[in-house]
Structure formats: structure tokens, C-alpha cells
């Protein structure tokens, strides 16, 4: 019997572990593989963090190097998280994949490869990008066309010679499209809803702006449409030494061509939505709205000499983007699905999952006593899914968890559940 089990030793689980330790709560962190497992096994080689070095602030830990504005490579990201686990002496049990969690007499029974644990509180920090979310149309891909979810993509050499269709225009899709087009492939990109974002604005990184202006701290109980906020596509950002902006215009400049959202496949022909222009118009309007907000904030601050406000050139869309493409005729040999992810809760045998496969929770306080969730998009604030967002969420949820344990300490007494930090 242990107070608390944390599932997952990524940045979110480790941040929670640190906060639990600070409160003297006895716990273990069960990790299916090694610390920072997803970063080690489910990312492409050239990926760099989309947030600058300074921004990865974890409880009791942060960046101390000489390049605060740089972007970590994957090995650097992994080392950062491993160093954090060591620095906080997190009680991680590696290679302890959880196969089943059940409720048992007001406790949670956690079955793992390293044995069974009975705990009073449980924190799910197993990530929100466990499985690729492929659209149903993926099943209709013509024979001979390779189907590659973005989480299985590593480098251009693993993609067959020939054309590539990248489905999805958010952070993963745009970066993979760039890399493949630069490697000499003809990339076609199917573009649905997306949000473009300049890497830098008025001389500062966009993340600096959003952090300082409080955009990243917007709370889940303040945002107008939470469901929408939680499914919002990731900003088209990339981390590079040149601090380059990777939007559709940048991709168009190197020869990537655009079609609308992949709507269907009939035989060897892909059918694309005629909504491309509106998708781009929405993206232009959204970024301008954000930049207006940031300018307004800047006016109210004493920020010294900033370059004047400016707006990006509107997204250039051809007059007549193709609606049909024959994979054979176009020589498209591979499709990369950059269509998002979904969490895997197949091991969670509790009545807390809604019909859409999401956990029922209020800001990470799951709809079951003593059960908590970490590391999801807009869990408690806009930054919740970022490394930088784990700290505030862990501080608040660990406070809630502590008060739950106190209430649950008396057998049979109703658990005291208050929104901590609210």
C-alpha cells in the first residue's frame, strides 16, 4: 500500500513527483520504458523543441545554459528531462508498463510489469500523444502507397522515392513537409484547419510574447469554448537556429503545393475539399487577432524600443487548387499522416471515459475520487501540454491530491474535494 502512484515519467509525471515529494507524499512513478520515453522513441530525428530553452521551467528546475533563446534538439530535450529526474531524485520505476488499473474498495489497483500497486491516489501522466489519430479515409489508401503516421516518421531516407502527400498543416505536418521537400521530394500538403504563427514578432520570440502577455496562463475555466481550446490545432512553429517562420508561404516558396483537406479516396484518386481558401483565411484572421492582442498588451507596458507592429503577408493560395489527385499519375508513393494524436486509456478500467474516448475531468481532477490527469492540452491553462505548463498544474493538482488524501485518511468519511489553488 502506497499513498500515490504516478503513471508516466515524462516532464508532467516528474513535475508532479517533485510537488508530491515537496508535500511529503509517499509515491512511485511507473514508467513503461525509460524516463522521457516518448521523446526517445516517438519523435523524428531533426525535431527540436518548439519552445525556447528559457521556457522549459519545471518545479525546482530550469535552463541554466548560455543560449536561453535556442531550441533544444531531441537528445538535449531527453537529457534535460533525465537530468530533472536525477535532480529531484524521482522515485521512478522503469520498464513498468501499466496493463490495468481497477478500483478496489476505494483504492486503485495498478497492475504493472514490475508488480502490482495498491494506492489511494493516482495521477495519469501518460501523455496525450500515445496513438496516431488517423482519419477513416486512411483505410482507403490505394495499394502500394505507404501509410506513415507522423509519430513513425524519422528521416527522409525512410520514405520511398517519389512524391509525398502530407496530410495536416499543423506543427508536425509543416516541419515534415519542409524536411521532405528540402530532401528533393515533391510534397503535396492537404491543408485543413491550421493556425500560422510567426517565430518572431517585433524582435521577440512569439513564445516570449504569449508568455509575458499572459496568453499562456489563460485558465481552462476562463476560456470561452473549452472543448474547442482542447482540440485546437498546434501553432505552425518550428525551432531552428535561424528562428525561421514556417508557414504555408514559406513552404510554397520551396515548391510544396497545397490542396484542401483530404476528404475521400476513390480508387487511386484522392479527393480534396474546396475549402482551402477559407482555411487559409481563418488562419490569417486568427494570427492577426493574436498579434492585435499582443500589440494592445505591449501598449500598456513599458517595453522600451520595440520595432513597430506589422502583419504577415496573407497566405498565398492558388486560384484553382486541385480537387482530385490521382496517386499513380502524380507519383505519390507515401502519405504522412500529421493529423494529430489521441491518448491510450485501454488499460484504465474505470468509468471515467466519455464516448469520445476522453477522460471526464475538471481541470485535471478526474471524475473519480483521488484520480488526477496531467499533461493534456489546455488541462488547466493554455500552456498545460508544454513542458513549461507542467509546473503550475502539478502544484495545484498536488494540493488537491493532498487534501483528498487527508480526507480519505478516515475510512468511510466522504473525501474532502476542493478546487485547490482556484
Amino acid at each position, binding site marked *: 500500500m502506497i499513498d500515490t502512484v504516478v503513471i508516466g515519467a515524462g516532464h508532467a509525471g516528474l513535475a508532479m513527483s517533485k510537488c508530491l515529494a515537496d508535500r511529503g507524499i509517499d509515491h512511485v512513478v511507473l514508467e513503461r520504458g525509460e524516463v522521457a520515453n516518448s521523446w526517445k522513441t516517438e519523435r523524428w530525428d531533426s525535431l527540436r523543441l518548439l519552445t525556447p530553452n528559457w521556457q522549459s521551467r519545471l518545479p525546482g528546475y530550469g535552463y541554466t545554459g548560455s543560449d536561453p533563446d535556442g531550441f533544444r534538439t531531441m537528445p538535449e530535450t531527453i537529457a534535460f528531462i533525465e537530468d530533472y529526474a536525477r535532480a529531484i531524485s524521482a522515485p521512478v520505476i522503469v520498464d513498468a508498463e501499466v496493463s490495468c488499473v481497477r478500483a478496489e474498495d476505494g483504492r486503485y489497483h495498478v497492475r504493472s510489469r514490475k508488480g502490482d500497486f495498491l494506492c489511494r491516489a493516482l495521477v495519469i501522466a501518460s501523455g496525450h500523444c500515445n496513438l496516431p489519430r488517423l482519419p477513416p479515409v486512411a483505410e482507403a489508401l490505394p495499394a502500394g502507397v505507404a501509410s506513415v503516421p507522423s509519430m513513425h516518421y524519422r528521416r527522409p531516407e525512410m520514405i520511398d522515392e517519389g512524391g509525398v502527400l502530407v496530410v495536416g498543416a499543423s506543427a508536425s505536418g509543416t516541419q515534415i513537409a519542409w524536411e521532405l521537400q528540402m530532401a528533393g521530394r515533391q510534397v503535396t500538403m492537404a491543408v485543413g484547419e491550421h493556425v500560422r504563427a510567426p517565430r518572431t514578432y517585433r524582435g521577440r520570440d512569439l513564445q516570449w510574447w504569449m508568455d509575458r502577455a499572459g496568453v499562456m496562463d489563460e485558465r481552462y475555466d476562463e476560456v470561452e469554448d473549452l472543448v474547442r481550446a482542447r482540440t485546437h490545432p498546434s501553432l505552425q512553429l518550428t525551432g531552428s537556429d535561424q528562428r525561421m517562420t514556417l508557414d504555408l508561404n514559406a513552404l510554397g516558396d520551396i515548391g510544396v503545393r497545397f490542396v484542401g*483537406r483530404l476528404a475521400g479516396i476513390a480508387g487511386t484518386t484522392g479527393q480534396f475539399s474546396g*475549402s482551402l481558401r477559407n482555411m487559409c*483565411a481563418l488562419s490569417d484572421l486568427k494570427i492577426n487577432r493574436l498579434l492585435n492582442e499582443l500589440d494592445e498588451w505591449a501598449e500598456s507596458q513599458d517595453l522600451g524600443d520595440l520595432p513597430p507592429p506589422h502583419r504577415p503577408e496573407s497566405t498565398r493560395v492558388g486560384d484553382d487548387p486541385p480537387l482530385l489527385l490521382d496517386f499513380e499519375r502524380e507519383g505519390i508513393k507515401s502519405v504522412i499522416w500529421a493529423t494529430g494524436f489521441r491518448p491510450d486509456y485501454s488499460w484504465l478500467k474505470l468509468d471515467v471515459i466519455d464516448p469520445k474516448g476522453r477522460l471526464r475531468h475538471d481541470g485535471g481532477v478526474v471524475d473519480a475520487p483521488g484520480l488526477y490527469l496531467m499533461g493534456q492540452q489546455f488541462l488547466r491553462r493554455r500552456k498545460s501540454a508544454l513542458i513549461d505548463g507542467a509546473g503550475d498544474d502539478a502544484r495545484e493538482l498536488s494540493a488537491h491530491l493532498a487534501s483528498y488524501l487527508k480526507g480519505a485518511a478516515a475510512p468511510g468519511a466522504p473525501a474532502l474535494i476542493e478546487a485547490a489553488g482556484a
Partner: protein
Amino acid sequence: MTTTQQTDVNNGVNTQALLDAREALTSAPEAAIFNWRATCTWKNGTHSRTEVKGFFGLGEEQSHKTTFTFDADHPEVFASEDKGATPAELVLVALGSCLTAGVAAIAQHRDIQLRKVTATIEGGMDVRGILGIDSDVRNGYNGIKVHYDIEADASADDIKALVAQSQKRSAVFDILTNPTNVTVSVN
């Protein structure tokens, strides 16, 4: 989301009812399954009359307040009697009215008072397709253009955002821009 209702903006849209419906249908998705119907009867030549009356939704049969009729025909340049708009024009009618309803509803939700909204919808068509002259020519529109002329108490960008959001939520825009399986049977 309910705070936006306490204003003087009135576009004649009951957004509170729409928001309530959205909430109700989120918890009862089966009630959201609608079935829209029309009955088309051939009159003479290319003239037909279509009636719209009943539909299914909210778990039961529903009915419009009255039976709506739509005459469709072709103009005299096609040697027809021109007793109604062409079916292809009715598609433009559907798109324009769908997008415009969306503009009004979204404007109400966003507290924007509309003064005037006019959409001009045009579709280009090469009739060699429907006449069977050239099998490489598509039957349908080779493109549809919608131009909005909107006067409202809002910035130019906010007005553009209304039109963009309306496209995003429009049934007819979706029907026209994405493929749909059409199954036709005969007695």
C-alpha cells in the same frame, strides 16, 4: 458563453436557443440526427415542382409550418419554358442562404449588429459537359464565387471573421466542397 446575450444587438437570431440546443444535443447526440426531405414531381418538359414539408429530428417526425414549393426549369435559350430557376441556380440559392444565415447567427453570438448583408453568388459552368459534347468537361460548376457586401458595427477583420466562420459551420458549403455519397434507387 451566456454573458454575450445582455446587449442591444439584435439580428433577429435567438442565439440563446441555439446555444441551449447545442448543450442539449451534446448530452443527447441521438436527438441530433436529422433527416431532411424533399419530394420532386415532374410537371412537363424540364419543369418540375419540389415540395418540402416534413423532416425528422429531435427523435421524432417534424413538420414545417407550411408546405414550401420550388419550381425548377430551364430558360428559353435551352428551349425550355422557364417556369423556374435552374436546379444549378437553386444550388446557389442554397449556398447563399446557408452562409447568410450563418453570418447572422454568428454576428449575434459575437455581439455584432448587422446593418446590411448582401451576397452575390455565381457559378461558372461549361455546358458542353451536360450536353455530352466533351466527356472531359465536368457537368457541374467549375467553381463558385461568393461575394459579400456587409455593413455592420464591427471592424473589417471582424466582418471577415464572420464570413470565414460561417463557411466553417455551413452545411451547404460542406456539401459543395466535400464529396458526398449519393444513392439513387428506383421503384
